[in-house]
């Protein structure tokens, strides 16, 4: 996956991820969600063999279970009674509704995991730099500053340990006080050093006039084709969604799960949209095979 999907102009993956998240949130239908989740898992598998997802596994599982359990717990509406616990009705509708929401949330999390792999801060910066140049500088400084502060705090605590001062030992009240002193030292130090950064920015002409931005991504023909492909599919799906397709009505009366002909068309569009990175990669592999 790394090879080809990442090579697109950052606008394309951005478009894809925005589209994917909105589709996952809008098209609440068990079939759609199941297929969508499967595709996104495949995309994640291509990235890093689920390494990224593993870190989110706890969140994913807990939110899944919570959503499935909590909805039937509070929601008794529905015609299909599954079972009764005491006075509490557990309905099929409630379970399906909770399940769909759970799938949708998991899907969104998985999309974000993939987003983190593809949309490096650089690309994001690039996208913003065109519209809001000042904001891009702010973002850039923040990106540098957060890890910098963390490193400095670590340094301070190491040095203070050499003086016998530590936040890990002693009475709670002194520990808190020491902690405050650390933060105070960190802030003074960082502000002091930031003066130099400001000077260095000024010395390089920051704030003198309109900024331009160094573009190292070119918008190529393939990018344009991809953009048309993604936007076209998205508009097609959205149009049909507005007309009630691709959505399972549960209340007041649950629809049949079966897909109509038009529903199937939308589903195909949906699959084509979400599998865009997979198609690109597969196409690349295919081509590589032929050429070699």
């Amino acid at each position, binding site marked *: 996956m790394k090879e080809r999907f990442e090579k697109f102009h950052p606008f394309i993956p951005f478009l894809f991820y925005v589209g994917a998240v909105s589709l996952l949130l809008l098209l609440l239908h068990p079939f759609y969600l199941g297929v969508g989740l499967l595709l996104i898992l495949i995309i994640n598998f291509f990235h890093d063999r689920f390494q990224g997802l593993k870190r989110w596994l706890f969140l994913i599982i807990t939110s899944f279970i919570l959503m499935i359990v909590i909805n039937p717990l509070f929601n008794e509406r529905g015609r299909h009674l599954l079972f009764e616990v005491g006075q509490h009705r557990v309905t099929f509708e409630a379970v399906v509704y909770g399940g769909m929401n759970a799938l949708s949330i998991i899907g969104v999390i998985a999309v974000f995991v993939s987003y983190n792999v593809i949309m490096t801060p*650089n690309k994001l910066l690039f996208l913003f730099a065109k519209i809001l140049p000042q904001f891009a500088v702010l973002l850039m400084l923040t990106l540098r500053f957060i890890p910098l502060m963390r490193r400095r705090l670590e340094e301070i605590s190491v040095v203070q340990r050499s003086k016998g001062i530590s936040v890990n030992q002693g009475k709670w009240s002194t520990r808190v006080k020491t902690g405050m002193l650390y933060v105070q030292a960190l802030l*003074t130090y960082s502000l002091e050093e930031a003066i130099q950064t400001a000077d260095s920015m000024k*010395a390089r002409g920051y704030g003198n006039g309109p900024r331009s931005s160094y573009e190292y991504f070119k918008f190529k023909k393939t990018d344009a084709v991809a953009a048309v492909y993604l936007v076209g599919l998205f508009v097609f799906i959205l149009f049909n969604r507005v007309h009630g397709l691709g959505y399972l009505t549960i209340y007041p009366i649950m629809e049949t799960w079966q897909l109509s002909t038009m529903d199937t068309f939308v589903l195909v569009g949906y699959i084509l949209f979400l599998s865009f990175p997979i198609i690109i990669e597969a196409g690349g592999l295919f081509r590589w095979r032929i050429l070699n």
Partner: protein
Amino acid sequence: MAYIELNKVTFSYPDCFEPAIRNLSLKINKGKFVVLFGSSGSGKSTLLRLLKKEIQPHGVLNGEISINGAPIQETTGLSKEIGFVFQDPENQIVADDVLHELVFGLENIGLKTNEMRNRLAEMVHFFGAESLLHRKSHELSGGKKQQINLASVLLMQPDILLLDEPTAQLDPVSSREFLDMLKRLNEEFGMTIIMAEHRLEEVFTLADEIVMMEKGQILFNGEPREVLPQIWNSKNQAFVPTIPRLFLSHKGTGMVPLTVKEGRNWVQESSAFFSEESKKMEYPIGDERIGLKNLSFRYDKKNDFILNDLDFSLAKGEFYALLGGNGSGKSTFLKVLAGLVKPEMGKVLVNKKKTKIIKNIELINLIGYLPQNPKLFFIQDSIEKEIQYTMKHWELNNVDEVDTLLNNLGIKHLISSHPFDLSGGELQKAALGCLLIRKPEILLLDEPTKGLDPISKQNLADILQSLHSEGMTILMSTHDVEFAAQYATKCGMMFQGKITSEDVPSEFFKGNFFYTTMLQRIARDLQNRAVQTVSEVQ
């Protein structure tokens, strides 16, 4: 008409009684390489900053500064014409990765993307920095960072380059590399370079003109070879680097030698006089105080070992200087020794007994550790409070003793100031004071000579020597070969996580090619004699 002209310039900071620059006149011609030097606080930085409009300090400025005939206040778009490189490699960096850092200035002046690409391609090639482009800026070494800073400034194609102690934070090899780059810029592109610098050993060979400042005024000004004898005959002998010092201290005649080559020629011609025995004082060396056995350490399970199977022993009364390149693990080694990080394998022995690594209280009581950046040492907002805090923490109450200590260190008058308001040398002394209050038996100093001017360095050396003569055991890591040769009783070389060789200085430096003193380089294969420092010669 000179290219840069300062005419009777006086500048004072707000709320300051003494002006920082006093009635200073200076002319600099186009294409010159000028080195400014003098003790800290002599006004070098202020002078440099006055030359660049954007970063002129606030204050009252009298007199005229003109560049290329135009008064500096009236010029516009100066950012492009004058580049400025600051002292600290880390703090100048704005962006998270190298590429953004490089083009930052170009973006600010609103250059077209195409031209940016052009300039960048050229500059990256010139610096050989292709492989660095997509690295994170904080992962680079200090030397590389400073090169990136220079490159970023050069991309704006300045005519004048101002540098404020650019190599103060670099190790000798990186600083040499950086200076070579400057020399190339000066020689191949005729760029006018004005640099403030403490490390004079190397820069004097590059400079067309040197300017010595004191209290906001110019003390000496001219070609190095002409000015050096004058400096030698004034009270500022500390500023004369080793090779001219050797020449001048023997009242040599003819051209003052600056490089090793010239120095060697002169020594051969004048058939000089290297005495073989050193006059170093003998200190009693006792038993082992701290030892390390088969010690290994790494910061992360995934990374390589920084210290690898290291054995070390520090005897009582030793003054040990640890040398080695950047990233060889010197700082980490000191941290392990001070009990600040826990080794993954191996033993730490205090008085030949194994310590409980878990608590480390033993080590902390025994050891005073001075970090590389003394600013991090202080968590109170004045020296006085820091001292009180330390006394309270260690349950000390002998105020008189503290007073004497501060007097001895010469920082008594500073105790009410904020640590960040002190100069590098003062800050270090203050931190040292706070350490010595609790009377540690061993001092660990992490590059104490970094960024100090010759006078502060001498000052530090005196303090360390008097501590040593009182029986303090000292271990310091340093890049300063001359310093180590002069004061240490034992030197060690750190390489690949091990201490690969250790010996007394006279033996240690004999065999080295880079890690050796200037005099040793001159004396190499001359009469088979080894000499380390001028004080031994005299």
